[in-house]
């Protein structure tokens, strides 16, 4: 075992949130080490193949998935530098003002300790930092005004356009979706060429993955990445008042201790609670930052509702990006549905490939043999789909706990228990019914509503709030109990809205990292 020279900051996890912290700290001249459990992927590793792309997806210490709706390793789990943002859809919807005060306004869910106005400037800055294509004016029918996106919306294709009359037929307005994909050359990065390989990782730089954006910048400014290194604990001083670094096992399975003035946990919503629990001491018997007992609580997923349909034309559904083309916040108001509370976000237009969990072959999982062949060869060219992301309210019953199983180094693994409550199920059912009507209105020849409620995204577990009585961290991600311990990522969201989380986690990370730098002398003593 070695204790390594003390650095300014150690960041656990080199995904989207870790990359933001690393870039901001490196810009400020801080010595930064990112510890990443997976490989250190380069853009040249990103082969255009769904099958090879599985190397980039969730791996590492297993999680026991339980509950009526186990979340599992969805597409938002990553493995290696870049995390899930290395191969994501780069859908960049933002939260709306009503997402921040649900408890006060409706007596449901939780309030954020901040408002939309606190985050809005960071949305605009992230858009410039990493490059977002979209139409802010069109979005402003649903949200307060902000800055224009730095690039115009991406080109649209028939498999998205074909749905627009259908949305109109049920009274839903759509607008171009904001995506982290270059519609034009931006900051020296290429424009997208619309061949739909974002899900395998984009080696051209058109997709705003961390390697092409902030992780790349952080490294250029001196941040060091230690790949294939598995963090087991955050270490604290004898008094339990401050963290002193992390313990990890390196690529050779050797135990190391990296001392640091500040520790940032950016190891995704599923792993940050494990680290806090396993770092328990006599001063923090229930785990670090867990005086509230809320570490691991309020895990949330989105209820994804998909309706697929066949149209009587070749829609060239393999073209475009992995992200959406059109979106609608019309059903964002929390009381939009009569039977269920919460927001719904419609979107459409992601490119499709034949294989993989969300591939064309799985649109009709009931087909096999020659019928599957006939579907893939004969009909799939007219296939398109729409997706509604439905909000789940935070519930303390949805949680991460330590498991009786141990990792290879003898530390407990975790269980993730998750069940959708009545509101999320009600929103899902309403979206499926509505989606069928949209498909009819669009002139679809055959319609297949997705019957199974599909958990998407994973949030919560280290939620933000006003004090250690009601939350784990403050609005900057700084833990209430240990000033030099931060948590970054979508684990700190107290509610999830119906939006893909990446834009907001980037904005919150930028806000948190800049607060850390601004107060460095008092935090990193």
């Amino acid at each position, binding site marked *: 075992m070695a204790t390594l020279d003390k650095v300014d900051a150690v960041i656990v996890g080199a995904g989207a949130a870790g990359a933001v912290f690393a870039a901001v700290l490196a810009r400020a001249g801080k010595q930064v080490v990112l510890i990443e459990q997976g490989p250190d992927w380069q853009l040249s590793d990103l082969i255009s193949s769904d099958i090879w792309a*599985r190397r980039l997806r969730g791996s590492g210490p297993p999680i026991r998935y339980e509950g009526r709706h186990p979340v599992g390793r969805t597409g938002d789990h990553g493995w290696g530098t870049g995390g899930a943002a290395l191969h994501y859809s780069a859908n960049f919807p933002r939260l709306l003002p009503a997402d921040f005060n649900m408890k006060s306004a409706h007596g449901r869910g939780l309030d954020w300790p901040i408002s939309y106005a606190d985050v809005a400037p960071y949305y605009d800055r992230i858009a410039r930092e990493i490059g977002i294509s979209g139409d802010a004016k069109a979005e402003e029918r649903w949200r307060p005004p902000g800055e224009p996106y730095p690039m115009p919306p991406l080109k649209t294709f028939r498999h998205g356009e074909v749905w627009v009359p259908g949305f109109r037929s049920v009274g839903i307005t759509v607008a171009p979706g904001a995506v982290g994909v270059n519609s034009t050359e931006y900051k020296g990065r290429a424009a997208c060429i619309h061949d739909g390989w974002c899900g395998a990782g984009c080696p051209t730089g058109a997709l705003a993955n961390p390697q092409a954006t902030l992780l790349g910048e952080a490294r250029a400014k001196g941040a060091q990445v230690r790949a294939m290194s598995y963090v087991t604990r955050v270490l604290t001083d004898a008094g339990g008042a401050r963290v002193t670094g992390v313990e990890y096992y390196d690529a050779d399975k050797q135990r190391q201790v990296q001392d640091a003035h500040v520790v940032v946990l950016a190891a995704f919503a599923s792993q940050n609670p494990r680290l806090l629990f396993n770092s328990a001491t006599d001063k923090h018997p229930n785990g670090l930052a867990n005086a509230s007992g809320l570490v691991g609580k309020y895990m949330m997923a989105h209820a994804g509702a998909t309706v697929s349909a066949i149209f009587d034309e070749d829609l060239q559904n393999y073209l475009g990006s992995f992200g959406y083309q059109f979106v609608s916040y019309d059903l964002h108001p929390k009381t939009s549905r009569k039977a269920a509370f919460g927001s719904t976000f419609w979107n459409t237009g992601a490119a499709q490939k034949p294989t993989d969990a969300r591939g064309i072959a799985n649109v009709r999982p009931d087909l096999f043999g020659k019928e599957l062949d006939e579907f893939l060869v004969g009909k799939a060219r007219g296939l398109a789909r729409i997706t509604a992301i439905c909000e789940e309210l935070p519930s303390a019953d949805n949680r991460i706990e330590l498991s009786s199983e141990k990792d290879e180094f003898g530390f407990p693994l975790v269980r993730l228990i998750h069940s959708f409550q009545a509101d999320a199920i009600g929103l899902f059912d309403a979206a499926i019914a509505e989606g069928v009507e949209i498909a009819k209105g669009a002139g679809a020849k055959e319609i297949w509503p997705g019957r199974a409620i599909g958990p998407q995204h994973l949030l919560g577990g280290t939620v933000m709030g006003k004090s250690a009585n009601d939350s784990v961290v403050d609005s900057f991600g700084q833990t209430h109990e240990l000033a030099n311990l931060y948590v970054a990522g979508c684990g700190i969201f107290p509610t999830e809205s119906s939006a893909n989380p990446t834009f907001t986690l980037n904005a919150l990370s930028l806000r948190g990292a800049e607060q850390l730098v601004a107060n460095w002398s008092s935090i990193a003593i």
Partner: protein
Amino acid sequence: MEQMERRAFMKGAATGALAFAVGGVEVMLTPGAARAQGVPLRTLTAAQAATLDALGETLVPGARQAGISHFVDQQVSNPAEEALLEARILNVRPPYATFYRAALGAVDRASQALNNGRGFAQLSEAEQRSFVDSMRQNKVDGWQGPAGGFVYLLLRSDAVDVVYGTMEGYAALGIPYMPHIAPTQRW
């Protein structure tokens, strides 16, 4: 990951082939070529491979010739974090070989119980199809093992991968492959 292992791994990714052991020497082959050359299996038994071949062919015509058994055998013989299997996305708990053994064993045990001792590979095409349709719906009498519907989903994904996940497969579907970084051996 050891540096040597990583270099070999990335070499495979760059060429699009997988690493198979032939005569004690590691060579890069597509699963279909490995099958055609009779490359020895590393983890699956011959009986398990025969069952997997028959299941794959029932699920997606062409899966046998595309080398589904050699594909799965090669993948379950590697460390889980290097796997290219859909099992990784579908939350199968490593080691993946354990799941495949359990799944294939369940298929053959149920087939034998229902068909006078005949394993799945010995059934007629019509019988195989009927069995798979029941397995898909979790309706195989006396089934013991991982849920039949999940076995169906996973093996169907493997069969789709080897038949349609390749550049050849895309061409058969009339879908332009349009790679940024091409897998050079149609994989």
